[in-house]
């Protein structure tokens, strides 16, 4: 007897017997996780060469970053007096600390690559064309958010690499027209990278930017799902 035919299974899945394709679709619709997906896609979307699976790769890396990032948060205090020592403690005394930090670091670099490559693949496929223009725009925002998340995280170890990379990266904020120095003050919390910067970057990195990222990602995936059935031939869709 299958699990979903038992009383408990029925209460969990609430789907009818999956004999016909229509039943399968109903089961798909009533599943919380599967509701991120369309019920059907065009056959060509299954081929590796269509997408190189770079979108799903980016999502998987985001998942890896959330899990490893939450673990690191347990052992890290964003203050210049403790941050560096916390990283050393994570690497030497925390269970799997060095490994989890490595996972977080390499997943972050890979995600920047994956998201950028995803954008290029979508461009060459022409998948930004009407009526998907706005999902491309959301994708560009997600790319910018990915870079910002990576950049804010770069400062947190508070070593020479982090400190000076962020000093270089933010030095250009001075040249933003009109607001100029103001933009830099808001970003750094002072006139140079210091305790206020570390706290700001930390809050951006673990709260604000991830929330924006997940929110926009939901819209991105929702639009992808809605558009999955569109005709994808030259001049297809509505003329």
């Amino acid at each position: 007897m299958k699990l979903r035919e038992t009383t408990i299974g029925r209460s969990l899945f609430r789907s009818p017997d999956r004999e016909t394709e229509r039943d399968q679709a109903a089961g798909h619709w009533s599943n919380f996780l599967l509701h991120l997906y369309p019920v059907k896609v065009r056959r060509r979307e299954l081929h590796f060469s269509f997408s190189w699976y770079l979108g799903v790769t980016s999502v998987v890396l985001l998942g890896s970053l959330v899990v490893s990032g939450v673990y690191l948060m347990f052992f890290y205090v964003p203050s210049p007096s403790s941050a560096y020592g916390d990283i050393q403690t994570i690497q030497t005394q925390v269970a799997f600390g060095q490994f989890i930090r490595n996972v977080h670091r390499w997943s972050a670099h890979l995600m920047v690559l994956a998201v950028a490559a995803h954008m290029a693949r979508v461009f060459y496929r022409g998948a930004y064309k009407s009526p998907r223009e706005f999902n491309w725009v959301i994708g560009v925002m997600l790319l910018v958010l990915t870079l910002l998340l990576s950049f804010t995280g770069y400062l947190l170890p508070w070593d020479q690499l982090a400190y000076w990379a962020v000093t270089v990266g933010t030095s250009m904020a001075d040249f933003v027209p009109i607001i100029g120095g103001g933009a830099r003050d808001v970003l750094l919390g002072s006139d140079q990278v210091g305790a206020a910067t570390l706290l700001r970057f930390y809050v951006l990195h673990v709260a604000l930017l991830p929330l924006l990222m997940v929110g926009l990602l939901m819209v991105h995936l929702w639009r992808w799902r809605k558009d999955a059935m569109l005709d994808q031939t030259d001049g297809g869709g509505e003329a």
Partner: protein
Amino acid sequence: MSDLDPRVVQGRRVLGVVPGQPPGGDRKVPDEQDLVMVSPHLLVRHAVVALTVLLLVLIVAVLFDAPLREVANPFETPNPEKAPWYFAALQELLSHFHPMVAGVLVPGAIVGGLIALPYIDRSRALQPRLRKVAVATFTTFLVVWVVLTLIGFAFRGPNWGWVWPWNEWHGEL
């Protein structure tokens, strides 16, 4: 009639066998525009991709430790002073142009141009040969960007001078 009756196949009674081919040919030729069920066809592929990506991350994380230099010191500027690799192209531009251009106008134009792209390119063609201008423009920018990133990341040393990465390595991840 029992289940062993040769005229019963998979619980159904065979009324007759017609020689020859079915009218639509032996097998339906799958069309690329056909709709297929996401579960299982796309889901199994995504599962394989997810496991592959996680395996790759696991292997890299076991083999290579994330870098950690000395504690931050505002009074000791390293030479070269490098931005993260994904900003290396901007930093390379910064060494050639005024910061207003390299730090504000160029990144602003890139993000603005990417956002505007689907509203500028209104053609409905999907094949590369029918959209030469769009493909050529995008490819040019992509190649320039990749080259600038590589230069800034691996080919720049002390005082942002040119180095060969196989002689001196200054790339930081």
